[in-house]
């Protein structure tokens, strides 16, 4: 049995390796969030295994986005804990959680509209020397060096998602699908441990969608990344995800590989409106 330590080298994100045998990247235990009198997330417990794509599905209002917000720190959980690679992250502010390695996309692409595609990516890495006014004056060479490194990385990422030709375009002039790719590219700039994707396929035309799915698989297989995504497009989920988690009414209904989930009558009932 292989021990999964350095995931960049170990491309063991292959289906024949059982999902439970490796240390989960994310451990969510009993988290809870209510709004007014409504329990949006009710005592949710789940593990996200490393190096695979996990999908989160469920009817509207099931609590999927709320769960994402709890994990990324936008909301504070009213109970329970969240651990990232053994380190406790619940209660930390979002930027610190980002720093620890959780990167997420938002449902409405929040690229900075007046900056170019390349500039959008170069903004991402934290603690750049050039961010300090004083240091820009007193350490120009270091600022230049860092900027060069970041630019090279940004160009690499752009090559990967095939947006390299648009590097100098204003982010706002990209199509919906291209904006999604830009969102994905941004998450890759920070070398995260896990990427949360909120409806990556929304508004993307079918051709671009195929490419998007390809990039997702590539990130996971070639770079050992862990992906956790919310999606409504069932074909996308069933064909891309290694593991599927189903939520309904704020709780986890069931989880398992796509083929099993698809045939589970409770899942269909949840979608059709049963309880």
């Amino acid at each position: 049995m292989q021990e999964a330590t350095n995931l960049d080298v170990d491309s063991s994100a292959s289906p024949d390796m059982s999902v439970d045998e490796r240390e989960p990247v994310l451990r969510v235990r009993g988290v809870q969030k209510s709004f007014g009198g409504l329990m949006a997330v009710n005592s949710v417990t789940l593990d996200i295994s490393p190096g695979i794509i996990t999908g989160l599905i469920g009817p509207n209002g099931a609590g999927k986005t709320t769960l994402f917000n709890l994990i990324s720190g936008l909301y504070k959980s009213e109970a329970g804990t969240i651990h990232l690679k053994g380190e406790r992250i619940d209660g930390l502010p979002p930027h610190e959680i980002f720093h620890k390695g959780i990167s997420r996309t938002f449902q409405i692409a929040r690229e900075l509209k007046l900056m170019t595609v390349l500039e959008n990516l170069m903004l991402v890495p934290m603690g750049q020397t050039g961010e300090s006014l004083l240091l820009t004056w007193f350490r120009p060479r270091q600022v230049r060096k860092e900027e060069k490194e970041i630019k090279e990385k940004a160009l690499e990422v752009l090559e990967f998602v095939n947006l390299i030709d648009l590097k100098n375009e204003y982010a706002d002039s990209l199509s919906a699908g291209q904006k999604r790719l830009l969102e994905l590219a941004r998450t890759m700039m920070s070398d995260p441990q896990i990427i949360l994707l909120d409806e990556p396929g929304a508004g993307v035309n079918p051709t671009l969608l195929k490419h998007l799915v390809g990039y997702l698989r590539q990130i996971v297989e070639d770079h050992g990344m862990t992906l956790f995504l919310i999606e409504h497009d069932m074909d996308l989920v069933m064909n891309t995800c290694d593991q599927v988690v189903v939520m309904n009414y704020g709780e986890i209904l069931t989880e398992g590989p796509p083929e099993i989930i698809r045939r589970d009558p409770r899942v269909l009932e949840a979608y059709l409106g049963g309880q």
Partner: protein
Amino acid sequence: MSLLEVKNVVSGYGGMEILHDVSIHVEEGEVVSIIGPNGAGKSTLMKTIFGLLKTWDGHVRFADEEITSVVPEQIVRKGMCYVPQVDNVFPSLTVQENLEMGGFIRDDDLGPRLNEIFELFPILKERRRTHVKTLSGGMRQMVALGRALMLDPRMLLLDEPSAGLAPIVVELIFERIRAINEQGVTFLIVEQNALKALENSSRGYVLVDGQNRLDGNGQELLADKQIGELFLGR
């Protein structure tokens, strides 16, 4: 001749096409439901029929009249009213004022019609002078329905009437829909809660990715094996 005929409609938002050739029909007196997974275009279809969205291609006919390019302000005059999914009441107005606004374009005395609406929703009568923003979700939905009924419409379009409501309240709302239907109003309902919708409809259409996929009698549809595939993918 159907009361509502939607033929080969193509429409969307901005540059995005959402409905790719959708056709449905509704006969007078029916309750027809449109169900389907998220993003299927159900709300888009309703807004296109009611003129809130432009029809890019295809036709919409109501009572044997072409309404494809007619604006909502005119469509209500022809006997079709619409209850949106969200923001479907005037929160800072009272219950009675909400209803009065529903009847704005009537030239006759609103009194008799108001009484009829209050008979349908007795709870609202007690609260006629209450500001709607203080009411519960279920009562707001009743106000929303009442507002749309003030013009004595032949047909009502309802966008997700059960959204955000507790199961008991959903049952109540659908029961009222049945009662109103018995009084002669035809319904076209878009619903997330497919079970509830089809239980209360004569017929249903399943919309997926902006296209017709299945249709038929309410109960048959629920039992159809294809439903699983349509909702959960192949």
